């Protein structure tokens, strides 16, 4: 039975069901037990499973990641949450040097089943240190699995698959997806950690998108369709392992590729998709592929600058049109940039 749930509710339900299914699953992170409960995703869990299994923690990101790893080595399955991916930079030692390598370097004797949930901030002046989108760093490291769900359905299914996986899984949640709603089955189900999804079919160009940029890609595809251009939208919800076959297949069909990613341009995840398609689909590409990504500068805080900083549907659309030799779409220049720094009009800040 499917209900209409938000992304937030889907994550919470997935966590709840995993905790019910396995006494080894526990939840840890700054604020997981506080009144805000990680943007609502952990609310009610402490009441249900007790303070041993749902625990706040000291501001000690690196050690606490090590603690998660250690507990996993002896049979637990921690879910860690950080309210901003930026805070997890303090834990990269444990993530990169230990979690990612443990199973391999100790000869395959012992997996590290941990899930690390990282929130990508955006808008309302989050600024340079609270809105990075660092998936490329994690996806570069062998031994990690990296996913970025978009739909509530996938949020639940990927979360359950991540918890059940015996490896460290990095799950990046974009704040502007938390209120998105959609059908979510009641039972436990898994979305594979290594598959992309075609969200819209089309023959003229492939738009490969990650995370929140999938919504912008779908908007762009809608607009393009109105002028007769049919774009295929591939949601790259699994960054590592990446579903290269599906991407190559789509590009082989359309001959054109635009990648829309929430991260920086240089060495961002978009670079990997371009590299894969250049390697494997060169003969099919009718023109050079393109990246729609953040410019290579830190996030500026002022909403006026942020509006210019974040690419949107229009940027994707423009790129597709250019590749097809179509004239630029007519549209008005942004008026009120305050509308662009919140996920929805009801939002009254701060995060």
């Amino acid at each position, binding site marked *: 039975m499917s209900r209409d749930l938000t992304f937030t509710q889907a994550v919470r339900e997935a966590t709840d069901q995993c905790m019910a299914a396995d006494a080894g699953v526990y939840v840890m992170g700054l604020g997981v037990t506080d009144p805000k409960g990680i943007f609502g995703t952990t609310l009610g869990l402490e009441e249900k499973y007790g303070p041993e299994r749902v625990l706040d923690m000291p*501001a000690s990101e690196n050690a606490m990641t090590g603690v998660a790893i250690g507990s996993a080595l002896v049979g637990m399955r921690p879910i860690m949450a950080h309210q901003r991916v930026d805070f997890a930079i303090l834990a990269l030692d444990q993530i990169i040097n230990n979690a990612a390598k443990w199973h391999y370097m100790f000869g395959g004797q012992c997996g590290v089943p941990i899930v690390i949930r990282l929130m990508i901030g955006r808008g309302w002046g989050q600024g*340079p240190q609270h809105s990075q989108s660092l998936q490329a760093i994690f996806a570069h490291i062998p031994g990690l699995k990296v996913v970025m769900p978009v739909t509530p359905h996938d949020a639940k299914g990927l979360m359950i698959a991540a918890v059940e996986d015996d490896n460290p899984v990095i799950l990046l949640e974009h704040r502007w997806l938390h209120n998105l709603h959609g059908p979510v089955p009641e039972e436990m189900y898994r979305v594979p950690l290594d598959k992309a999804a075609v969200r819209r079919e089309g023959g003229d160009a492939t738009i490969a998108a990650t995370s929140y940029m999938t919504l912008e890609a779908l908007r762009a595809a809608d607009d393009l369709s109105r002028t007769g251009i049919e774009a295929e939208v591939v949601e790259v919800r699994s960054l590592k392992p990446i579903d290269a076959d599906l991407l190559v297949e789509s590009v082989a069909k359309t001959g054109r590729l635009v990648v829309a990613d929430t991260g920086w341009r240089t060495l961002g995840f978009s670079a990997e998709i371009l590299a894969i398609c250049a390697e494997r689909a060169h003969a099919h590409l009718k023109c050079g592929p393109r990246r729609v990504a953040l410019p290579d500068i830190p996030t*500026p*805080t002022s909403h006026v600058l942020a509006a*210019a900083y974040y690419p949107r549907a229009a940027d994707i659309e423009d790129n597709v049109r250019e590749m097809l030799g179509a004239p630029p779409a007519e549209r008005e220049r942004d008026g009120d940039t305050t509308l662009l720094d919140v996920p929805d009009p009801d939002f009254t*800040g*701060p995060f």
Partner: protein
Amino acid sequence: MKTPGSEARTRLLRGMMRIRLIEEAIADRYAEQQMRCPVHLSIGQEGIAVGVCATLRAGDYTMSTHRAHAHYLAKGGSLKAMLGELYGKETGCCGGRGGSMHLVDRSVGFLGATPIVGSSLPVAVGTAFGSQLQGEDRVTVAFFGEGTTEEGVFAESVNFAALKRLPVVFVCENNLYSVYSPPEVRFHPDRDRVALAKAHGIAAGKGDGNDVEQVLAMTGEAVAAVRAGSGPAFLEFDTYRWREHCGPNYDNDIGYRTEEEFLAWQAQCPVSGYRSLLLEQGVVDGAALDGIEAEIGREIEAALADARQASFPSVESMAADLYAESGGL
């Protein structure tokens, strides 16, 4: 350290009143949604910023965290540049790039505030290291909350400062909470930050952050010793954040702390307590205070008007300044 005279005491009171009124003005206007960035107000914590900064010279350095307004203002940071920054304007101290969590005013030695917990601590220690290498007799003050001491970088920073006997004073504002997390979920009840600092080999002490003169006296002594070369000091002051962790509102109703606890701390207000004391002791009279308040009010209104009227940074400027232009050695 001699006790402050009437003028100095009035300055202390005025400094706290000014910060309180500025923070309240921000809180009042936040709902207008023109200050579109997270703000962590210092209301209730003014005594520490003012008491500490009163002991510093203009050339001394300070650094801070996400909750930096009081420190920035007490060190003499420009109000216009701060409000400009909150409004995201080009007149802001970062030209709108940073917002409330990234204050800076190099002209008064306020070298920067950053909101990654613990991240400004070693940087502050580094400025003191720079001063030592340069043979300057500056002192650096690093402001931070008690939650920050849970980050490993706190221990690392204190250790290096101790090793090199650097001219830095660590000022820990213990407001009990780290966001909504109480001490019980963060450390053992016997954890003792003063003992921790001492175990690293530095002087350390603890005082009442609601008593600006105690802050002044303890810090004054520490700063004098540090400047004289005694090596770093750690000072912890008890205090309380009145409003929500981030944002303009009260939040005693949401469940992580009680209204009673809040009221007990509010009763020890650093500003009104000191105001009563100075009135009682005849250091100032009501009329003078009214005058001060009016003057501060005018300053705030002018700065707010300025911030509202100022231009936003141009979109064209967005990519500028990624790199500093280098002049060579």
